[in-house]
């Protein structure tokens, strides 16, 4: 299916690949995202490497300000004083046929989670709702292989697809205030690690010391969209020693 290009007023193009959540569609989003990033990077470096312009598109990558990958669409933001809809659309159409090499850039993460006591305030209610033991819920959550599909809601909130079917559960009827940072939550097929204190209607089943937002770092966002991850269970004692260590490297 050829993606649809839709104008977003004078500041962007939304590339819509489909209307469904599907891993192969998401891979196409990531590929175009990576290809445009490559063109923008080349544009920035074009003083020295103009002759190595492999896609022939460095000029038309001028004025691109923002790329937001989501489940089945990519937003390409531009500055209307520097470029326009037709120019950006031509760039996108060309790059749809270029490999962005997004697969090789994806990393895999192991996130240790304490699923115990106060760190899992919704576990008792969830056990009742799903008719599973806490042990079973933890086993399912740690068995899942997750992918970062997109960010949204608040800085560093990465939507992780891949929650195993037996623990799919609809959101709570209303949001609960002041969910602490580092909370590991689930709703439907998605899981999420909170990075700031915010209200949420998702089910809090654990806490990690390794929140994916390092506010004081030069690279504050641990995950890129397209990265994969898994959760491992920590006891409360292990969690406390982990908390003091910090740090996280991709595996």
């Amino acid at each position, binding site marked *: 299916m050829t993606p649809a290009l839709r104008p977003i*007023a004078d500041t962007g193009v*939304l590339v819509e690949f489909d*209307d469904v959540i599907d891993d192969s569609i998401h891979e196409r989003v990531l590929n175009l995202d990576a290809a445009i990033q490559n063109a923008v990077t080349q544009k920035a470096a074009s003083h020295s490497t103009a002759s190595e312009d492999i896609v022939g598109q460095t000029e038309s990558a001028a004025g691109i300000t923002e790329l*937001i990958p989501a*489940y089945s669409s990519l937003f390409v933001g531009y500055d209307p*004083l520097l470029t326009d809809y037709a120019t950006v659309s031509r760039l996108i159409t060309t790059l749809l046929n270029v490999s962005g090499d997004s697969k090789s850039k994806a990393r895999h993460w192991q996130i240790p989670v304490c699923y115990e006591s106060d760190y899992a305030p919704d576990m008792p209610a969830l056990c009742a709702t799903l008719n599973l033991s806490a042990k079973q819920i933890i086993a399912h959550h740690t068995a899942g292989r997750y992918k970062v599909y997109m960010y*949204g809601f608040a800085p560093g909130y990465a939507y992780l697809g891949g929650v195993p079917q037996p623990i799919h559960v609809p959101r709570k009827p209303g949001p609960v205030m002041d969910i602490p940072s580092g909370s590991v939550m689930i709703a439907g097929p998605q899981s999420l690690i909170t990075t700031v*204190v*915010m209200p949420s209607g998702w089910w809090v089943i654990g806490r990690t010391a390794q929140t994916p937002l390092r506010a004081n770092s030069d690279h504050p966002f641990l995950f890129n969209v397209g990265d994969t991850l898994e959760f491992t269970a920590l006891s409360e004692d292990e969690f406390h020693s982990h908390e003091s260590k910090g740090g996280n490297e991709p595996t």
Partner: protein
Amino acid sequence: MSAQFLIDHIGPLVSIQDAGRPGYMRYGVTGAGPMDRMSHALANIAVGNQPQIAAIEVSLGGLSLQCTEGKTTVAIAGGCFDIKLDGNTLSPWSRLEMQAGNKLSIRPGAWGSWCYVAFADGLASPSWLGSQSMIQGTNLCGQALQQHDVIQQQSSSTAAQTSKNNTGNNTGNTPLLDPTPFKPDNVIRVVLGPQNRYFTDESIHALHNEPFQLTADYNRMGIRLSGPALSINTELNMPSAPITRGSIQVPGHGDPICLMADHQTTGGYPKIATIISADQDKLAQLRTGDHINFELCDAEKAVQVARQRRDQLRSMIATMNDNQISLDERLWTQNLISGVFSAEQ
């Protein structure tokens, strides 16, 4: 010595805003920045700053400051607010000198919802990802300003800035421009989409043929409108998709919500249309109860309008210069003009 100010009174939604934090929406970080970007740039330029520098964005809740230390130049632009310096009324768009003991009071006036107080050299405040714009509901970039907080002017960093502050021929308190011609009308231009296909033909027709009204459900994230209910023509099963400033999203209740400076970056409700960037400032300056009419436009025209708006800002700056400032400062300001436009985004 940099000047210092004490907040005597502060209304809700007043915050420090620079031109915003572009480039991080893919990580869930909104662009932020001023609700009315042109007025923010104009206030900065009037004190000799680069247009993207941090200033105070004042809401209808108002702001009162007293200078407790030092002296500096301050400029105000935006809506038509009621501005008083030590009890004396000034023009709504003014440049003024403040020194220890002076009290500045900003209250809602004849029209407008936001105005900007820019300080020569900007403000010293926390910065995150290259921007001093506060991030609502988090402490990632400082906390919300409160009564009795102290606001510190940024100390000047370059020789050029120092010289412009010490030209010695300050004109005292002077009006910048008459704001009357810039009072917003009620026509807001939109480009249909990206998810207009989900809406009934009647809803699309109503969008650009019937008036909508701004409700009190209004903040820096968005403005909820009331008017004809907009309805979806199919069962909605849309995966969450990117949102941008100006998106008009329609949740299940059928009332459109215009997403503004602090919008979330993705969401699952369909967007019927997007407000063109040039008219976003205008919408921001309207008030609860005001009516608007949406007018359809295409992307090409919207880009033209954005470029016309740059030209409008250029001519406003030129008029402002002719009105009042010294030759040295005029040259300085002209050097800044090219910087305005890349920062506008």
